[in-house]
C-alpha cells in the first residue's frame, strides 16, 4: 500500500525505537550516577512519534526538533555514540560538546536541530521550507513540537505563513498531554489541536502517536503532498509523557493510573505485537539485543571520550584586544 513502510522499513523503525528506549534508560541511569550535567528530557513511551514521523524522510530533508528530541535524532539517522557524547559534553559529540543535551544538530543528516526555546523549531522549519521552495527542490522540512509549544505565538504565525505560501512543511505535533508540569487541559480550552489547521486553510489530522505504523502512514501522506508543492499539513500524534518532564522533575502531578494506562499502550509493545505476525520472534529478539548492546557500547565510549578545551570563536565575536 502506498505510504505503508516495507517490512525492512518496519524492522528498522522497530530497531530505532529500541535504540531510543535504551538510550533514555541509560541516560536516566547516568543522571542518577551524577554523570550528566543539567536535566535530561526523556521520551520513553513517545518513540513511535519521532521514529515513525521521520522514517520516510531522506537525509537531505530537514527536521527541527525540541528539548525532547532523542527519538527525532535517532529517527533521522544520527549516530548514538555522537549523540551521547554531545549530551555528556565531549569533544566527540555532534557539536564538540558545545551544544549539550537540548540543541544537538547534525547538518549531514538534515537535523537542524534540537531547540530549547519552546516553539522555536516551528518557524525554523518554515524558513527552511521557504529556502527549499526558492531552490525549486522537492525536499521538505518537518518540525516536531509539543502540545505546549502549540500555544506560542510563533506557532500561529508559522502555520499561517506556511499555509499561505504553500510551503513544503510538515507540522508534527507530539501531544504528550503535558507542557512541563501543566496538563494540556490547562493550556488550551480545546483538546484536539489538529483542528486548528482549518484556521489556516491546511489539512489537519489526528493519529495514534503510539502506533509507529499509523504515524508513518499519516505523515508520509503529508510528506508526499508537500513534495508535490501542495503545501503544509498538521498531524497531531496523541501520546503520553510517562517519564516526567526531565530528570530534575520532582513529580507528583501526574496520576499513577494514567501512567499505567499508557504503559499498556507502549509503542514498542504495539510494534512487537504487529511485527510478530510478520517475522520470527528471534528476528525481533536479535534486533533488540543488538540495539541494546549498541547503546551500551556508545555510552561506554562516550564516557571515555575527552572533554573539549576552550578556544575563542571568531564568527561569534569573542573578546578582542582585551586581556582575559
Amino acid at each position: 500500500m502506498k505510504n505503508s513502510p516495507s517490512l525492512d522499513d518496519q524492522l528498522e523503525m522497530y530497531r530505532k525505537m529500541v535504540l531510543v528506549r535504551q538510550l533514555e534508560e541509560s541516560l536516566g541511569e547516568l543522571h542518577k550516577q551524577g554523570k550528566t550535567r543539567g536535566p535530561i528530557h526523556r521520551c520513553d513511551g513517545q518513540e513511535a512519534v519521532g521514529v515513525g514521523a521521520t522514517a520516510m524522510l531522506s537525509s537531505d530533508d530537514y527536521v527541527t526538533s525540541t528539548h525532547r528530541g532523542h527519538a527525532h535524532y535517532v529517527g533521522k539517522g544520527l549516530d548514538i555514540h555522537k549523540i551521547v557524547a554531545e549530551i555528556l559534553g565531549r569533544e566527540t559529540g555532534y557539536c564538540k560538546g558545545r551544544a549539550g543535551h537540548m540543541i544537538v544538530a547534525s547538518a549531514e543528516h538534515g537535523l537542524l536541530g534540537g531547540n530549547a526555546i519552546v516553539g522555536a523549531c516551528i518557524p525554523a522549519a518554515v524558513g527552511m521550507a521557504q529556502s527549499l521552495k526558492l531552490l525549486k527542490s522537492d525536499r521538505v522540512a518537518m518540525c516536531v513540537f509539543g502540545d505546549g509549544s502549540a500555544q506560542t505565538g510563533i506557532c500561529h504565525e508559522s502555520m499561517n505563513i506556511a499555509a499561505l505560501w504553500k510551503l513544503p512543511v510538515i507540522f508534527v505535533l507530539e501531544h504528550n498531554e503535558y507542557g512541563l508540569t501543566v496538563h494540556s487541559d490547562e493550556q488550551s480550552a480545546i483538546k484536539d489541536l489538529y483542528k486548528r489547521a482549518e484556521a489556516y486553510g491546511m489539512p489537519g489530522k489526528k493519529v495514534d502517536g503510539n502506533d509507529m505504523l499509523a504515524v508513518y502512514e499519516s505523515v508520509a501522506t503529508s510528506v508526499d503532498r508537500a513534495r508535490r508543492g501542495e503545501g503544509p499539513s498538521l498531524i497531531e500524534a496523541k501520546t503520553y509523557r510517562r517519564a516526567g518532564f526531565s530528570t530534575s522533575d520532582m513529580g507528583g502531578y501526574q496520576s499513577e493510573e494514567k501512567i499505567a494506562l499508557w504503559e499498556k499502550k507502549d509503542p514498542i509493545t504495539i510494534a512487537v505485537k504487529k511485527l510478530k505476525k510478520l517475522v520470527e520472534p528471534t528476528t525481533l529478539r536479535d534486533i533488540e539485543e543488538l540495539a541494546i548492546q549498541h547503546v551500551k557500547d556508545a555510552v561506554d565510549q562516550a564516557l571515555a571520550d575527552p572533554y573539549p578545551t576552550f578556544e575563542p570563536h571568531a564568527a561569534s565575536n569573542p573578546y578582542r584586544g582585551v586581556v582575559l
Partner: protein
Amino acid sequence: MTMQRYAEALNSALREEMARDDTVWLFGEDVSTYGGVFKVSKGLRDEFGPERVLDTPISEQTLTAMAVTAAMTGTRPVLEIMYADFMPLTLDALVNQASIYEYIWADQVQMPFVLRTQGGGGAGAGAQHSKSLDVLVAHVPGIKVVAPATPADAKGLLKAAIRDPHPVVFLEHKLLYNSRDEVPDGDHLCEIGKARTAREGSDVSIFATSKMVHDALKAATELEADGISAEVIDLRTLRPLDNTAIVQSVKKTNHAVVVNEGWRFCGFGAELSATIMEQAFDDLDAPVERLGTFDMPIPYSEPLETSVLPDAEKIAAAARRALR
C-alpha cells in the same frame, strides 16, 4: 533573623505581600500546581487559591503584555518568566508598552507589576538557558531593574518591588536559590536604588550584581592574602543606579573593577565603567577594569562554560591589573 535559602526568602516575600494586599496575584508557567520550577511559589496556590496563583500556557509575550495592562487596571501582577533567556519575548511589552505609558499618557495610569525571572550560567543549561541579558531591560526607561545577591535582599527587594507603583524587573540567579543566609524577621523591605557595601576595602572597588557579588567576595579574600584590600559593592539595583555609592567608593580606592555576568560588549558593565569614568575621572588612577561573560554563546560542556564566565579568579586578576 532567620536562616533562609534565597528561594525561601523569595517565597516569604510573595506570601507576605499576597496576604497583605489581595490585589497581588501570581502567574507564569508552572508557578501554581508545581510551585515554580525553582520552587519560589511553592505552597502559594494552596494558601491563596488558584484564582490568585495561575499556571499559564507558554506565551511569554502575551503574559508580559497582560501584566502591563492588568497593573494599570487595579491589580498587582507578579509574573514569572522561567529563564532570563526568554526575556526577548517579553521585550515588546516592556519597551513599547510598559516603558511608555506613564509619561506618554501624562500620568493617567500607573503600572505596579513585577516581572520575576532568573538568569546566569554555571549549571550546564546550555546556550539558550544560561544567559543574563540584564542589560536588555536595564536600557529601557521607566522600568526598574533589581538583582539581589543575598536571601535578605531577595526578600526585601521583592517586597519593595511588589509595592512599587512602577514596573520592576526582578532578576534572580539559578545558582543562588540554594544559598542560605540570615534574613531579618518582620516586614523587611529594601529600598530600590540603593547599593550595599558587601565588604569594605581601601585599595580597589569591585562593583558587582547578583551572583557576581559572591565571586567578588571570594576574589577579595584571595586578594587579601596578597595584601590588597578590596571593597565590594553590591549594586542590588541596575536601574536606577546608585551613583552616589559608586562615586564614594571610587573616591576612596581610586581603582575600580566592574563585573557583570552578561556579555561584556554593550553589557551592563559598560554603563558602570562609563559612569565611573564620567563621575570620578579625577579620582581614577587607572582605567576601570571591566569583566563580563565572553562575547560568544555560552557553551554546555563544563570546561568550556567555565572558561567563558567571569569568576573569582578572573576578578582577582582584573583587580591586580587595575592596581598595576
